[in-house]
């Protein structure tokens, strides 16, 4: 099964009634078990694109579709930047939310809930409310909630951008471990180039005004352990290559504030 994003455009009308093109002519596909990272400077429309793929926004033109599904409705797991856990539900109740809504049996809910809470390392916190957790633990719960429905496509919108640098590094490592166990097709959005190179099979670089695909870079490094010494040179080359592509746009973006 692959997910195709075909000729997607998105235009907004801004506060001054001018038409703004956020995305223009976006074409790419996410293959089965592929980890695709969208990277770009702020204002390049990467979150907009993820929202369109996630069915939370409609494109002005073009379409997003699943190819090769056996007519069942594909399900999507989304990990939000704002985490968006339900504050009145405990960790366990949050994680099984999607299962509850899909009508899974109580027993299935319990099994899968426990399984994915274990996987993200939140055992023992099942009955805690989100308010009682640290930022990193909240995002773990958010990831477990998305994994629990065993989605056909996992969408992650800058999931670690609100975390401190240390927690972020740990979460990136753990995400890879989890991904390695589940092998879900994933679309991941970030503005952090190191993160993109560390996680991606393929990095899609977006430019801004309008948001277009500037380049697609396949990361030819083993999926696990890219931070090892032996890969450091090539890792830095990838980072530099992407930075050169984004630099000009990023400078412009920072001047606009």
């Amino acid at each position, binding site marked *: 099964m692959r997910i195709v994003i075909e000729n997607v455009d998105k235009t907004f009308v801004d506060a001054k009634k001018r038409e703004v093109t956020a995305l223009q002519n976006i074409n790419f596909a996410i293959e089965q078990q592929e980890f695709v990272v969208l990277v770009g400077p702020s204002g390049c429309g990467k979150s907009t694109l993820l929202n369109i793929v*996630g*069915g*939370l926004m409609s494109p002005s033109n073009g379409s997003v579709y699943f190819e090769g599904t056996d007519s069942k409705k594909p*399900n*999507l*797991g*989304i990990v*939000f930047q*704002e985490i*968006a856990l*339900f*504050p*009145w*539900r405990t960790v366990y109740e949050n994680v099984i*939310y*999607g299962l509850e*809504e*899909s009508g899974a049996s109580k027993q299935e809910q319990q099994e899968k809930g426990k399984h994915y809470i274990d996987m993200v390392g939140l055992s023992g916190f099942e009955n805690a*409310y*989100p*308010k009682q957790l640290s930022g990193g633990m909240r995002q773990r719960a958010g990831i477990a*909630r998305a994994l629990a*429905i065993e989605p056909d496509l996992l969408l992650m919108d800058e999931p670690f951008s609100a975390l401190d640098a240390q927690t972020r590094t740990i979460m990136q490592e753990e995400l890879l471990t989890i991904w390695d166990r589940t092998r879900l097709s994933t679309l991941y959005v970030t503005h952090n180039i190191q993160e993109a190179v560390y996680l991606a099979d393929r990095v899609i670089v977006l430019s801004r005004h309008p948001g277009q695909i500037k380049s697609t870079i396949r990361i030819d490094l083993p999926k696990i352990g890219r931070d090892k010494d032996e890969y450091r040179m090539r890792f830095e080359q990838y980072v530099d290559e992407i930075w050169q592509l984004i630099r000009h746009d990023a400078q412009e973006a920072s001047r606009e504030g």
Partner: protein
Amino acid sequence: MPDKQRQVITNRVAFLETKIPSYAAVLGITVLLVLWEIVCRLEIVPPLFLPAPTAILAAGWEMLVSGELYEDLVASLLRIGGGYAVGASLGIIFGLILGFSRWTDAILTPIVYSIYPIPKIALLPLIILWLGIGEMPKLAIIALGVFFPVVINTFSGVKNVDPMLIKAAVTFGSNHFNVIRKVILPASLPMIFAGLKLAAGTSLLLLVSAEMIAAQQGIGSMVLHYGNLMITTKLMVGVLVLSLLGLTFNRVLQWLERKLVPWK
């Protein structure tokens, strides 16, 4: 250099963390009651105008034992309980619908806001005309008075639900009904309770007013009755009961809020 000068830094915002002893809460009220008692004992104010607290308590006890209070209290409790339950339930339901659907919001909100500022007691004669002189008009006027603060608070609670949470719920497969039940309702509960507390005061006010205007029984009519007879001690017993009723009402709501909103 042993005699070097020291400048110790002290916490300059210590006043923010001042500890208050637990008896402080009863201090004010005790002093007030004692002063009141002294003023009455010294007969600075004649007992007809202001009976002593001990006299009120004694009269209250007597009325309780003789069962005189019982009928009035039950009549009042039934009215306020019934009216409040009806008004609050309708208020929450309408508030949720109004907040969720843009159509009902656009059509009904102007109506709600134009009826809201009317002092509901002004509608009592009309409601009596419609519903007769039994229990119904009293229940209706209380329900009406409770409905508006609850509906408006629920509505603004719904409007303030983080749209991210609704998006999250929809992503994980919720239909509209479940979005309301599992996201919008719990997220608005804190605001709903603010409305319920506001409405508790309103309902008490309307209960007493309605009973004073049109009732043979109830705390309100009892207060009016003893006022006409100039039996101030028994009048004050009625006032005391109303104060206790209000306090209990608030306590029950607080308890319920802690039960239903444990995640705040």
